[in-house]
């Protein structure tokens, strides 16, 4: 596709359930980011993948959160045993090469609601 694609666009889940959020970056982009945005708030960094390097997981809020990036392309963010405070919009972005002056392109996000 032409842009970053995230699925699902909306997800309602029960407290305690696991969820998987998917991100398809722009083809050829080596960098991929996950951010969390609570209602009306800023972007909270979660995790950053760059090529074949070990991901920067420093933003993951707890061990219930994990992410993978398979084949340097598609990424999945998994939240286990969801809590109500996990409710937020989860944004994915990709860029061609973060060491250059390149723009990060964002998906539309997944709005997660934990009930």
């Amino acid at each position: 596709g032409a842009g970053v694609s995230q699925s699902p666009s909306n997800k309602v889940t029960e407290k305690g359930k696991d969820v998987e959020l998917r991100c398809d970056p722009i083809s050829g982009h080596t960098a991929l980011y996950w951010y969390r945005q609570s209602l009306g708030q800023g972007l909270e960094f979660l995790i950053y993948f760059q090529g074949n390097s070990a991901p920067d997981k420093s933003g993951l809020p707890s061990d219930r959160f994990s992410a993978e990036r398979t084949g340097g392309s598609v990424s999945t963010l998994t939240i286990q045993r969801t809590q109500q405070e996990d409710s937020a919009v989860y944004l994915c972005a990709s860029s061609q090469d973060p060491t250059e002056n390149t723009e990060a392109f964002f998906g539309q996000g997944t709005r997660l609601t934990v009930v």
Partner: protein
Amino acid sequence: AQTVTQSQPEMSVQEAETVTLSCTYDTSESDYYLFWYKQPPSRQMILVIRQEAYKQQNATENRFSVNFQKAAKSFSLKISDSQLGDAAMYFCACGADGLTFGKGTHLIIQP
């Protein structure tokens, strides 16, 4: 690692007036770049303007311009002739190896 601070949670401006959004940053990198992104209610993040740190000349994109003060680590965004469509959240970002965003400024345009 870098940090980005936006000290104005909300700003309001009359249509057709000029408004300046503040941003300060800190980075240990010598080569980095700075961005302003806009997020309208549609939730889609849109790049407004970018600045290479090694360039002294301030970037300009139509009604949007920046005031880049490298020594002060300041990167403010000026919006001239504000329009109703400019209403959005504005995020400042700093990047060298990865992107760090500020918490955003909610811009309100008064008709």
